[in-house]
């Protein structure tokens, strides 16, 4: 053993070992470099997968309360995201394309009469097919879907990608407004005063976009969505026989006697277009729906502030002039515009429905 010396004793051997080492380094680095493309792709794929996992965790924690655990939305609260509408899938695309092609061929000069007749037959078949598709989508249509305008991005006139649409929505949230959602979507980004970092928003978006089925969306998927987005422009026309935002409670009560309320219609207003259920749900944001009438009779009317009120009067006032009396332990968050959105009949229906909630 000659460990006392330089481990590799002879200079020639050292040159050999050194040269071989450098050559091996070059071979190894070359080999790594050749494989870099594949490795980088694999890392990207793995990272995206883990990003989806983290996004799923956050979705369950932060988003599922409104958008549903399955991402299909909750009626009257928030739209579905696991939805062909968000990804712009057009169920009528095939039929439309064929119709357009055939119409162009029919109208073109030089098409023989025989061919024209053939085309007409096929076109009428296509009308039936389109109708069949639309009919099969009836459940979705009832929930706000329009097969003729199947893309959310097109409808809102979004000029960029779906990714940025979802990301931006997460950053800023969505406001409450007349004829829009009853409950605001908060701004989630820290830059907009929310709680999530940009990388977390990225994770959420990759998770949401992972619902995309590409060409494989089915009618069942569309019908399984509980709620489609509200298009702010679609409604909001002034009601002709509205109660009026400024009408005094006494006038309302006096007028209301002339109407007979229908609890069923009241219920569908409550859960549907007025979306009262969005807030009056679990008793966190607003008093829960269950037991409303009992509470009115036993607790509210016992409050000295409401001395002389009847139950109906209290309910009508709470709906039209929500700020007149705030239930203890809650804040005044209720929109003040129901006076403009309800007719006396609607109001009577709602009150009748609430009287059934014991």
């Amino acid at each position, binding site marked *: 053993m000659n*460990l*006392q*010396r*330089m*481990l*590799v004793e*002879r*200079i*020639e051997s*050292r*040159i050999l*070992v*050194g*040269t*071989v*080492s*450098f050559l*091996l*380094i070059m071979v*190894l*680095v070359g080999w*790594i*470099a050749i494989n*870099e*493309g594949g*490795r*980088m792709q*694999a*890392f*990207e*794929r*793995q*990272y*995206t*997968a*883990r990003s*989806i*996992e*983290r996004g*799923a*965790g956050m979705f*369950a*924690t932060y988003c*599922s309360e409104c958008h549903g*655990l*399955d991402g299909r939305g909750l009626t009257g609260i928030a739209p579905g995201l*696991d939805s062909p509408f968000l990804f712009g899938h057009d169920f009528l695309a095939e039929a439309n394309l064929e119709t357009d092609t055939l119409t162009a061929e029919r109208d073109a000069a030089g098409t023989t009469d025989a061919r024209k007749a053939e085309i007409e037959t096929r076109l009428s078949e296509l009308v039936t097919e389109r109708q069949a598709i639309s009919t099969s989508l009836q459940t979705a249509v009832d929930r706000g879907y329009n097969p003729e305008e199947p893309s959310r991005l097109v409808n809102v006139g979004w000029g960029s990608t779906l990714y940025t649409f979802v990301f931006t929505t997460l950053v800023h949230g969505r406001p409450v407004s007349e004829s829009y959602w009853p409950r605001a979507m908060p701004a989630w980004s820290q830059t907009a005063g929310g709680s999530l*970092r*940009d*990388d*977390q928003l990225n994770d959420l978006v990759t*998770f949401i976009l*992972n*619902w995309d*089925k590409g060409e494989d969306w089915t009618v069942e998927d569309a019908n399984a969505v509980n709620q489609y987005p509200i298009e702010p422009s679609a409604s909001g026309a002034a009601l002709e026989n509205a109660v009026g935002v400024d009408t005094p409670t006494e006038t309302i009560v006096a007028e209301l006697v002339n109407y007979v309320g229908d609890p069923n219609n009241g219920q569908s207003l409550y859960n549907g277009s007025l979306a009262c259920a969005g807030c009056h749900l679990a008793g966190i944001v607003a008093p829960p729906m269950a037991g409303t009438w009992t509470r009115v009779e036993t607790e509210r009317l016992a409050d000295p502030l409401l001395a002389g009120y009847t139950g109906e009067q209290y309910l009508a006032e709470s709906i039209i002039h929500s700020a007149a009396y705030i239930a203890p332990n809650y804040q005044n968050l209720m929109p003040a515009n129901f006076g403009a959105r309800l007719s006396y009949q609607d109001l009577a229906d709602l009150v009748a429905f609430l009287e059934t909630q014991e």
Partner: protein
Amino acid sequence: MSVLPFPSFLDDVKEKGLRRALYEGINSVVERFTAGMNVQDLREALRGDPPSRKPNPRLQPHADGFWLHMRPSYFHKSVTGLYPEFRLGWLSTYFVFFETITGIFLMVWYTPSPQVAYANMLAIMANVPLGQFMRDLHRLGAEAMVLIVTLHMLRTFLTASYKKPREFTWFSGIMLLVFTMVLSFSGYLLPWDQLALWAVTIGASMVEAAPPEVVGTNLNLLLRGGPEIGANGLLRFYLLHVLALPALLFVFLGVHYYKVVIHAHSLPPKEENIGEDTAKRVPLDKRVYFIPDVLTSEIMWIGVTSLILIILVTWFFHAPLESHADPQVTPLGTTAPWYFLWVQGALKLGDKVFWGIIFPTLYVVVLAVVPYVDTAPSRRWAHRRFQLTFAFGMIAMTVILSYMGLSEFGVVTSADSEIINEMVKEPAHNHMGHIRPVPYDELRSGMYTTRQFEAGMGEEAEVVAAFNEEIENGEQATAATTLVGFLEATHHLPVTSLNFTPLPDDGGELYHVLEEFGMAIEARPNELPNAWGGVIITDVQDGLKRIDVMIVWNDYVNENGRPILNENGQPTLVRDAEGNPVWRINNNHIFIHENSQYFSAPGT
């Protein structure tokens, strides 16, 4: 003759012929490059022959050249071998340059801001060719450097090379060790992942303990740039890492090496008389010249060491990258980097000020003053029994304290949290929850319970059916109702009832993981009385599953989380008004995507 006042190259050619003129031209260029050695000299040197002309041309580069003037022209034969130095000092220097080069590469791709630092890491991994390679090398080099520098110090101590006249060389070496460790540690924060954030949070909070309070608080503020580590803190650590510390390191490296050269390498103790230092007086027959001997040797070692590092990062080592830093999420079992584990261990002994600040400072001070205290002339082992005992005492203490620094030691976590964490833990410290590496296609949706292992072979179906019956209307009914409500309300898992199915033993990973889960619960009967574990797998999206891992057990009377045992050695159960045991639940869930590669992909 040409018009020039001196002979041109053409004149040379005319006079000597093309070949000779060219050779001489090249020779003079080479001689200027090497600062004194011509082609012939180089060939002789590389062949290992003695120089053929005088004065020795191999000394010329040391006299005239800039780079080699820093190196001695010859060494004593006894210090060029493996013993006594093991090349540790040389290796440390190698790593300084190695880290600088790989570090500059990474710097090109890095921005010290919490908004983008982590994204930069991802970009380095996913978009920069050889990015991961460089990052792995830089990280591995950093860890290796800490180790090598420490061993260098240890070797110097064992051969007593710190003795007169090398006291200050030792002191500057201790400073270099400190800088190396702080450099390595300051680099820890830069990826801005969970590992970074929490290791540095621990480190910085130690600084806070420095007495008196006004000093500690302000030092901590200066270092973190605010009450919490954020943009300012990251920038400060970055500047420390790439500017301040390297500058200090290079200055001290210069001082250290100047001292090494001026005093020469100390000889092995047995080759000198006691109290002598003959390193500077090397007899002619003991001289090993830098050119060619030491130089070829060093270049060879550069090749060999780099090759070893590259082999390691190709197949065996990858720099960790955990999830994005999140001050709101404290990972279970956070530890300092391994070279600071001894401080973390010491902290568990008690007072933060003493064990976190005074003790480590004292440790360094004791090391620094060694040569000024141990002034006895002999460097031989037989005469240094106390010093060697002291050294091994310090080593033993450091190892024990490091062991105590591990998260397993002395940190009380409740059994249920610990077991569930072992199942679902995110990859960290080269370790991850047992469920993650289960192949994706084995994760069939369903509900599974550890109760099935209470049966003998082949009876799983009956036992699980009986257990389902118990859940339906037997003694587990209350537990099951609470569990379902808990899963739905707290964990957002849409289940309405429990119905477990037996998992077949088909040699699959999931079966083994469930079995391990059951054994882990069984191993803690006092902390988890009458416990059972459940695993619920549900589909979330195409290619994405959710896995809930839960433990249900009877509550018991406890003190600081530890059960108070009755005379039978069993925990006393807490009972409700009707005398039934109270059930407690813990659950955690993770999501697994099919491309997540916690397991190795098929075909790789």
